[in-house]
C-alpha cells in the first residue's frame, strides 16, 4: 500500500489514543462485521473541545485518519470541528490511496457523532450512535479494487 509519509507517521506514532475520564461526548461508528470500528471521546468545555481521544480497530489508514482528526480538532470550537469532513482529513494527511478513502469517512463520522452525542445529552453512553459504515458513509463502498490473490 502506497501511503504518504504523514499517514505512516500518524499510524506509527498515533496521537491521542485512549479514553477520557471526563468525556461528555462519545461517538462510535463502523461495525465489526464490515471490518472497522472507530471510537472517539471528547471533553467539551464552553463550546471548545479541550480534549479528544480515539480507539480504532482498522487498517493503517483508519488509524492515521483517527489520529489526524484528533489533532485537527483539539482546542477548536464545536462549530469549527463540525466543518471537518473526510476530505479535509485526507488532505491533511497528504492524501490516501483511492481504495482507502472510505476509512477517512469513519474518522469524520465518529467525530460528528461524538459532537452530536454531546449536544444531545452530554456524554450519556445510551446515546452513542452505532451503525455500519455501509450505512453511515455512502462513499464507503466505492473505489474498491480487489487485490490479486497470492
Amino acid at each position, binding site marked *: 500500500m502506497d501511503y504518504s509519509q504523514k499517514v505512516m507517521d500518524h499510524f506509527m506514532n498515533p496521537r491521542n*489514543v485512549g479514553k477520557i475520564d471526563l468525556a461528555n461526548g462519545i461517538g462510535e461508528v463502523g461495525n465489526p462485521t*464490515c*471490518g472497522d470500528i472507530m471510537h472517539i471521546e471528547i471533553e467539551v468545555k464552553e463550546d471548545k473541545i479541550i480534549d479528544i481521544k480515539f*480507539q480504532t480497530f482498522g487498517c493503517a489508514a483508519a488509524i492515521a485518519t483517527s489520529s489526524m482528526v484528533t489533532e485537527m480538532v483539539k482546542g477548536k470550537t464545536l462549530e469549527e470541528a463540525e466543518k471537518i469532513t473526510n476530505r479535509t482529513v485526507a488532505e491533511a494527511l497528504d492524501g490516501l490511496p483511492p481504495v482507502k478513502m472510505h476509512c477517512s469517512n469513519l474518522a469524520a463520522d465518529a467525530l460528528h457523532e461524538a459532537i452530536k452525542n454531546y449536544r444531545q445529552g452530554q456524554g450519556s453512553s445510551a446515546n452513542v450512535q452505532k451503525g455500519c459504515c455501509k450505512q453511515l458513509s455512502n462513499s464507503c463502498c466505492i473505489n*474498491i479494487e480487489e487485490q490479486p490473490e*497470492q
Partner: protein
Amino acid sequence: MKSIYMDHSATTPVDPEVFDAMIPYFTDIYGNASSVHSQGQKATRAVEHAREQVAQLIGASPREIIFTSGGTEADNQAIITIMAANKKGKHFITSAIEHHAVLHTGEYLVKQGYELTILPVNSFGVVEPDTLRAALRPDTALVSIMHANNEVGTIEEIKELAAISHEAGALFHTDAVQSVGKIPVDVKDLGVDLLSASSHKLYGPKGIGCLFIKKGVGISSYLHGGGHERNLRAGTVNVPGVVGFGKAAELANQRLPQNAEYLKILAQRLTKGILETTPNTILTGHPVNRLPGNVSVCFDYVEGESILLMLDSYGIMASSGSACTSGSLDPSHVLLALGLSHETAHGSLRLTMGKDNTTEDVDYVLEKLPSIIKNLRMMSPLGK
C-alpha cells in the same frame, strides 16, 4: 535494517543456481525452439531437458507436461477445456478454499451455462470425502481440489478424493501450485488426471508453470495459434523461463526432504512462540497436515494490514487475509470458509518461511510481533 522475508507462498526469490542456468538463454542461445537451425535445436534441447526435470519432480512422463505461463493459465486450461470437450456432462465440482484462478474460472463457466458445485470445508480447511461423494452426479465431468492451500497451508487428501471422483466417472484436477517442491508430489500415487504447478513458488522465475495431463486424457488448447507444445499451448516457448523452471524443479527434488524437515521445525518454533506469548490468538488451518513453512494465525481485536505495516517497519515481510488488505470489505474467502467470523479473519497474519530463513529470523519475529499486537490492541476499542 534487517530484511526478513516470510512471504514465500506469495513468491520466492530465484535461486542463484537457477538464475545462472537461465542466463545463456537470453543472449547466447536465443533461438526459437520451433526453428530448424542450430540455434533452434539448442533451444529445443534445453526445453526438453527442462521438461524431464519437471516431470521427474512430480513422477510424470515428460510427454505428460506442457509449459504454460504459470499456475493461473494451467488451471484455466485444465478446467475450461475439459469442461468444453467432455461428453459426460456440464457439472463441475470444486472447493470453497480454492485460489481465484480456479474459483473465478468456475464462475466463468456458470456464465457459459455450466453447473458448479462449491464444496464446503471443515474448520481445518479439509474437504471431507463424504462431502465430495454427496456432490458427485452422473453428469459431473470434472472435480478440481487444490493439493495445499495457499493461505492456511492445509494439505488435502487428494489420493482419496481422486479415487472417489473416478468411481463416479469424473476426471480429477488438482492445483498443486503450493505443494510442488515443498512436499512430495507424485501424480501416479495421487491418481490425478491433471495437475497445475508454478515455477515462482519453488525458487524459479515468474511467468512460467506447467500443466500435467495424464496420458490418454483428452485436453485441448486454450490459447490458439501455432503448434507449440504438441498443439496444446500456442505461443513461442519462453525458453529462459522454462530452463529456470527445470533447474528449480531439479533442485527442489534434491533438497525437498531436508527443506521440508527444516521448515517444519522453524514453523513449530514460530507457532509455539506466537501462541505462548500472545493470548486470544488461534492457528488457522490443519494443526498437522499443513505446508512445512506455513504459520497462519488470527489475532483477536486487531487488523491485519496494521500488523503487516508494523512488521514491515522492522524489516519483516508477511501477508494477511484481512478485509483491509484485500481492498474489499470482505476478508479472505478461505478464512470465511473455515467458519471464522469476519472479526477474527480481520486479524489474520500469514508467515510463510522458505529455505533461507533461519532460527534467528524466527526469534527476531518472536521478539517484535507480541509487542506489535499488544500495542495495536491498546489502540483497539475491542481490545482488553
